[in-house]
């Protein structure tokens, strides 16, 4: 009897752990993460940085964390992910781009492709953009530096979906704006 109680106790411990490790993620997956979002007004990412979402995009709340001095936002256009990360940064644009490229290639199977091109936003932010490939998917990245922050944009999806949605996303990226007063 004592052994059975002991075994049941241990199995109870294991079951509780399983609840934490597998149960919570299962509940998380069972609930939708996407929220409708207006594409005709700026969305505050964090640290005073805003962007107008692409038409037809949904906000993925699991990848969105706005804060006073940094922030992330994740939009989804079907299978395409469009993520923007704002972080404090004390370097120049070249260093910011190099840092992002390094992080991309540090991920197993990821490679940056081609040369970087200069880009700018309607609000006057200057940036660099490039492309990368990964197994089964491709991507674009862009990086801007403004007011002590780096704004990193990554877009990923398969080539077909990317080709279809890139014009809307690039149009959205051009609406990035940094306003120190909003922080």
């Amino acid at each position: 009897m004592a052994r059975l109680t002991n075994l049941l106790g241990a199995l109870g411990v294991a079951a509780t752990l399983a609840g934490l490790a597998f149960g919570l993620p299962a509940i998380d997956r069972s609930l939708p993460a996407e929220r409708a979002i207006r594409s005709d007004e700026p969305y505050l990412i964090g640290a005073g940085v805003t962007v107008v979402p692409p038409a037809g995009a949904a906000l993925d709340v699991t990848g969105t964390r706005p804060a006073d001095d940094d922030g992330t936002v994740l939009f989804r256009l079907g299978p395409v992910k469009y993520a923007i990360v704002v972080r404090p940064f004390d370097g120049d644009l070249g260093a910011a781009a190099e840092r992002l490229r390094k992080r991309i290639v540090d991920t197993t199977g990821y490679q940056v492709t081609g040369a970087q091109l200069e880009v700018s936003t309607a609000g006057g932010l200057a940036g660099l953009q490039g492309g990368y490939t990964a197994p089964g998917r491709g991507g674009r990245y862009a990086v801007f530096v403004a007011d002590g922050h780096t704004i990193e944009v990554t877009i990923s999806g398969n080539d077909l979906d990317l080709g279809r949605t890139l014009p809307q996303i690039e149009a959205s990226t051009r609406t990035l704006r940094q306003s120190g007063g909003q922080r």
Partner: protein
Amino acid sequence: MTTSVVRPARSARVSTLVRVPAFWVVLTLLAAGGLRMAQMTGHFFAAYPKATTLSILLFALLAVPFWLFVSELDFLEREPAELLVVAFAWGGLVATTVSIPGGVALENLMAKLGSPQLAAGWGAALAGPTVEEIAKTLGVVAVVLIARAQVNSVLDGVVYGAMVGLGFQIAEDIVFAVGAVALAGQGDQVQPVIATFLLRGFLAGIWSHTLFGALAGAGIGYLVVSRERGRAHRAGVAALAVLGAWAFHVLWNSPLLIDGLGNGALALLGVLLIKGLPPLLLILLLVRHFQDREADYYVERLARLDDPSLITPGELAVLGSSSRRAAARRLPGAATAVRRLQRAQARLAVELSRADAESIATAEAAVRDQREALRRLGHAEAVAGPVSWRHRASTIATTAVAIAVLWVALSALGGA
């Protein structure tokens, strides 16, 4: 003195653990957690070999003083090293492995059911502590299940809880350090590891998971030991202790005072003290209280012997106090001999409480051997001698170095 202070039990040999069903379940969980952590570490090594090696080395070294301190908390009735290893491994392998997906999921649920703003502001403060404190507390429950006889005082619960917390803290720090390297985006650099070590090791290490785990462990210890109380009372106290650990963890992770009290090292120190000092003081008071009660219990058993060859009246006064034990070890040229005698006397006290004649005889013989060794060094008993100028100078120098190290760390991270 009630028996609820210490619940004497027959000495449980670790080799007998294999007969306990829970042992095999715990072993399986440790193996699964170990496999997962090995996979994660393998990825770290592949991407950042230098930084990963350094972070493992630094945090492993940091674990050593914590381990020694925690394992010395219960000097009189020491815990078996094997069970301390199980507790540490549970924290480092099982609790971390479970907490990573569980914490992320809970934070996502906060974003889904609340808002991304809620998750951004309070996700780390609420999701992390909720999953982590449950997973860590289960480590103490696991130790109780596999070796109930070894958890016979509240202090035992504190020790095992602190060990689980320490294992968790070290593993989490390594993951954070390598994460900082990845985030920096400058390749296999060691600077983010050193910054993480200063911040999470030196500044946050004292009042981190080891402390929260100790409080939760005290609750489980009380639940197991205080049999004269009703089940509901004991369960209530245990729940309160786990809730307390959770609340202190929430306070530590909370965005309150996130902007600090201003700039500079003093401001950073102020925030650390406001958030970290309450649990530290509470735990120290609790430990002191339970150490004193346990010491009274064991010293009383030794006093009944009334045999100065085993323990003198002066040594009885010394054995129950950690500071007086330490002072006695400063007898000229006899530090090791005094320590061995004190250990032998503590062992005898435990055997007296278990009332096993054969083990008592063996323990008495061991005390007499150590007594003889001390006499050969010219000391009749292990009591404190006068404080030497060398000891005073050493104390002042150590304090000065500790303050200097703390100040350098605060200045480096606080922008002084």
